[in-house]
């Protein structure tokens, strides 16, 4: 059995439509029409121990709702979830002792306590034995570079320091699963990098299974080895990051620097996407133009000083996927009207 088993999970939310105008508002005091929205709709997947899963989707796709059901905060409307052999929302306490949770947008730390004291409280709350506690505190303080702010009350920490503190606290009891809901939101590049490296090394050392939601595709690129994508509550994609990136390999980008200004290439399959004084960028369709041919054409018409070839990044593939599902929905709406 896998560490995390999600089968046919749905979660419905009820909301009522606020009408316009006073008369209608008064009317709703007596009779209300509710709108039911499926935040998560028949989602199934399973995750093995030690996997690093990126859970992505546009805003409002149902990512957070799924994470909340996995971590035992929400009870699904239907379907079953098993994590580490238990149903998370039925055995909340037991579940809590083998998971760690970080919500990027919601702090769990006590505002008035310095981190040292918070660590101590968590040691008691999770009943962590002394050896594990000391080892983990030392490791996290070192890897996350927390020495400078251990004694400061949390309210005085910067966003990046707070996020590192959240991570350390969530991992103090050696959880087997770590849920991260947008862990790098609003952080600068250096802190982002620290956090990503930390998660990777944690996974290598302790085989911690990580599920993270994010809008930053670099998180996926640098941390994850599997992508699950959800949109409008439905699972749209579940594959390894490697397979995911191959999807985009029907084209690539060539960035070209040259000394003398030249006329741009105009052949089918090669598209100019950026034009600067001494630098042109083309998008090349690899099925239509062979690499050899392209090189010959380029060297014929340009006095090349530098050339860079880029594969599309995850970001771009995701953008295409999001757009596609958006368009599909638009067309479905149109059909509906007819």
């Amino acid at each position, binding site marked *: 059995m896998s560490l995390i088993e999600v089968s046919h999970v749905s979660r419905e939310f009820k909301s009522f439509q606020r009408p316009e105008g006073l008369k209608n508002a008064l009317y709703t005091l007596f009779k209300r029409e509710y709108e039911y929205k499926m935040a998560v709709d028949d989602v199934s997947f399973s995750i093995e121990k030690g996997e690093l899963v990126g859970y992505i989707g546009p805003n409002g796709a149902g990512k957070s709702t799924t994470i909340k059901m996995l971590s035992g905060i929400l009870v699904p409307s239907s379907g079953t979830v098993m994590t580490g052999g238990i149903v998370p929302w039925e055995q909340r306490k037991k579940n*809590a002792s083998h998971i760690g949770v970080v919500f990027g947008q919601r702090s769990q730390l*006590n505002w008035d306590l310095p981190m040292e004291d918070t660590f101590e409280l968590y040691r008691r709350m999770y009943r962590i034995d002394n050896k594990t506690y000391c080892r983990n505190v030392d490791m996290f303080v070192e890897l996350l570079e927390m020495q400078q702010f251990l004694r400061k009350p949390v309210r005085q920490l910067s966003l990046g320091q707070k996020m590192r503190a959240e991570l350390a606290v969530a991992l103090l009891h050696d959880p087997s699963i770590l849920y991260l809901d947008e862990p790098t939101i609003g952080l600068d590049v250096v802190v982002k990098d620290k956090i990503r490296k930390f998660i990777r090394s944690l996974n290598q050392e302790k085989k911690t299974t990580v599920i993270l939601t994010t809008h930053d595709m670099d998180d996926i690129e640098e941390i994850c080895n599997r992508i699950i994508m959800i949109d409008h509550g439905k699972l749209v994609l579940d594959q390894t990051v490697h397979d995911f990136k191959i999807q985009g390999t029907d084209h690539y980008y060539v960035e070209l620097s040259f000394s003398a200004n030249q006329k741009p290439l105009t052949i089918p399959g090669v598209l100019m996407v950026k034009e600067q004084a001494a630098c042109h960028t083309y998008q090349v369709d690899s099925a239509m133009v062979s690499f050899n041919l392209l090189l010959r054409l380029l060297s014929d018409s340009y006095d090349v000083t530098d050339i860079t070839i880029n594969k599309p990044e995850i970001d771009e593939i995701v953008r295409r996927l999001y757009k596609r599902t958006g368009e599909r929905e638009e067309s479905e709406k149109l059909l509906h009207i007819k």
Partner: protein
Amino acid sequence: MIGLYTAFARISFLTQLEYRGQYFMRMVSKILGWSTGFIMLMVLLQKFQTIGGWSIYEILLLYAFDVLSYSIAGTFCMGAFGKLPGMIRQGELDGILTKPVNPLVYLVSTKISAGYTSNYIIALGIIIFSLRKLGIALDGFRSVWLVLDIIGASLIQMAGFMITTIPAFWLYKSDGLYQLFYKNFTEFLKYPLSIYNVGVQTLLTFILPYAFINYYPVQYFLNKEEGRFASCFMFLTPIVGILAFFAAYLLWLRGLRAYHSTGS
């Protein structure tokens, strides 16, 4: 485990003391709030001497039972349940539900209020003062029973707090319930229940058992036997307290299951 919750409560308590200005302002406002009620009572009693056959010190005892049990309940519940509807709307329970703790005990111990300490002193003072004026000695048994009554009364007050705020899990806002079924109905407790009509007496005894906070238990100490129901009611406060609290706890558990959280 109890040690852990005590540690949480201690931190919450000490943190509030750290913000000294805020702490003293709250203290002053509480003292003023209760004293206006107290002064109103005194004025009324100056005029009428007795209300429903209860003398001034007997009524003061009623008043002090209410204030003391309310303050104990408020210490534990004001932070946790006063803010519960807001916390539910903001999805702030998420963090609690992912910790290996009892959510209720954790919520209460991390949100304990330090602002009621002045009330304890005032209410206890009034109880001792009135008993002495009435010539009632607190022997061993009576003082134990007094403690049990205060615990029972506090549990009823807590249940009132909880049952009127927990519906926020379904309604998102429950200020109206809290105001009506807790705040407004406990206003009746200022005077002996016997001055109200049958409807109010039945309501406050069987449906919202607030009369067990002061009217019934106080009769034991005053050697009174009145009220339209059985005289054994004066001994039931601890039991009613436990039952009411248990009912509130069951409602809490159902509320947690219905918890919606909010998207982020």
